[in-house]
């Protein structure tokens, strides 16, 4: 169905509804894993991850501050880039309900456009909001037009509302309580980090990387190849060992670290496909545990990353024991 030689490509995240509920990430589409050209794969991975991070930042920023937990007061300090002063964050924000208490992405479809670096992300979201002291819901379909510059930092060219359908039911409890700031913040961080690892240096500012690149510890275990150094050194050695390729997030779980306010741990499962330094195709299933602190100003401080490579999922029988 998909051919990268064609200028347009489409990746349908048909399972995103289930994904959003279960804590999974945007799926690694089969077409990505089958893509043979390494540079195309890297471009695709960077585009998807940097756009997904921006989208998570955007939806996280729409949630009302009333839901914020102590210490996470500045989640809404979005640094999303809009391409035109005529299309400001405030203008777009005004098209959504005011008191949003939960946002659930139920479908998404990324399409590359004819113009270089231009992507369209069609998204369906279920928005829960307070009105007349009752929780109400609304299904919104909208299209984000993204432009990725040479530095791979996406900016939103346009947001077009396709439809907005209020649902009739109202409730006293929040039906989207799982889809709040922490949910979006964790995914914003995860996608930006993956884009950064693949070479999108500009995505580093999204995750405040200058503040922790030189201080966080990064331990890596790839078979008998092991590293345990400051992130800035480990990352370089790890990427040299691994070779060229693209990371795609398969699942993400965010957990609070007990006894430490505003400390969290992201548990990521990542698919990587690329080539080694001698040009051989290579596959990895990566587990990363990222420990971080959200500081009072809302900025991110990563403390440690632990990475280990697992057995890639290839055959249904490989986990069998006899």
């Amino acid at each position, binding site marked *: 169905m998909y051919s990268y030689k064609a200028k347009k490509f489409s990746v349908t995240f048909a399972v995103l509804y289930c994904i959003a509920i279960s804590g999974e990430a945007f799926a690694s589409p089969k077409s990505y894993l089958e893509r043979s050209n390494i540079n195309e794969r890297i471009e695709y991975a960077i585009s998807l991850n940097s756009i997904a991070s921006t989208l998570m930042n955007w939806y996280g920023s729409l949630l009302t501050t009333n839901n914020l937990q102590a210490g996470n007061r500045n989640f809404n300090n979005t640094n999303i880039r809009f391409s035109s002063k005529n299309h400001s964050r405030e203008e777009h924000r005004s098209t959504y309900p005011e008191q949003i208490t939960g946002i659930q992405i139920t479908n998404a479809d990324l399409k590359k456009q004819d113009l270089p670096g231009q992507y369209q992300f069609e998204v369906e979201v279920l928005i829960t909001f307070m009105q007349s002291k009752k929780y109400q819901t609304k299904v919104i379909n909208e299209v984000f037009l993204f432009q990725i510059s040479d530095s791979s930092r996406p900016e939103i060219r346009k947001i077009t509302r396709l439809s907005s359908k209020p649902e009739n039911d109202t409730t006293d409890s929040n039906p989207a309580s799982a889809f709040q700031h922490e949910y979006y913040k964790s995914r914003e961080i995860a996608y930006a980090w993956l884009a950064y690892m693949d070479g999108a240096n500009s995505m580093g500012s999204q995750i405040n990387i200058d503040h922790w690149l030189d201080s966080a510890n990064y331990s890596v275990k790839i*078979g008998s190849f092991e590293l345990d150094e400051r992130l800035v050194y480990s990352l370089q050695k790890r990427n040299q060992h691994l070779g060229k390729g693209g990371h795609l997030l398969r699942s993400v779980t965010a957990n609070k670290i007990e006894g430490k306010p505003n400390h969290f741990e992201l548990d990521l499962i990542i698919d990587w496909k690329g080539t080694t330094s001698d040009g*051989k195709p*290579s596959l990895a299933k990566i587990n990363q545990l990222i420990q971080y602190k959200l500081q009072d100003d809302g900025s991110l401080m990563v403390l440690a990353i632990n990475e280990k490579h697992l057995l890639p999922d290839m055959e249904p029988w490989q986990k069998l*024991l*006899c």
Partner: protein
Amino acid sequence: MLKKMQILSLASLLAVVTMTHAEELPILSGVGGNFTAIDTDGQEIEFTSFKDKVVLLSFGYTNCADICPFTLGYLKMIYSKLSPEEQQHVRVLFSTVDPEYDTPEHLKAFLAYFNKDFIGLTGSQEQVDKIASLFHAEYQAISAPKSVETKHVRRINEKEVESGKSDKTTLFNHSIMIYLIDQQGRTRSVDYTGTPGDELISKIRQLINEQA
């Protein structure tokens, strides 16, 4: 004569086309690595000593009544279909998950039942655990330690024990994977006895023919 040459040329061309289209096996990042073990000659070896050989590695134990004989029978069949020259480039390794019972001598006698070229790996529990961990292989005891008399186990070969003493073992379950490892020690494929023989042989030949 000319017709024979034409047929041979066509066959060679087809072989080249087929090889060109054979998909290169990917390196499975983080699966495998260097380790030490005791081989069936009682020598401590490093896995790096198999550099420049294509390796087929599986896990099991000599008192396994189920999958191990089946896996080793399958590997015997695969190995026998390789030419003597190809066999020179291939090593079949069997790493025990029960190093306490599987001494080098016993492991050697067990493997010789299948093929005398097959090499067993044993060692300390720590060494065996490390090999399993590097390859993400799993195993666990399914009986109390040394609680099952081996006379009740359907075995390939009996272990020599002092007369008058009963021979007892632990039963395990374990991963069934066969790891195909290239000449640089990198895992390139994970297979099992359900992999069609021709398919695994084709993969082995691909790795034999790779430039070291």
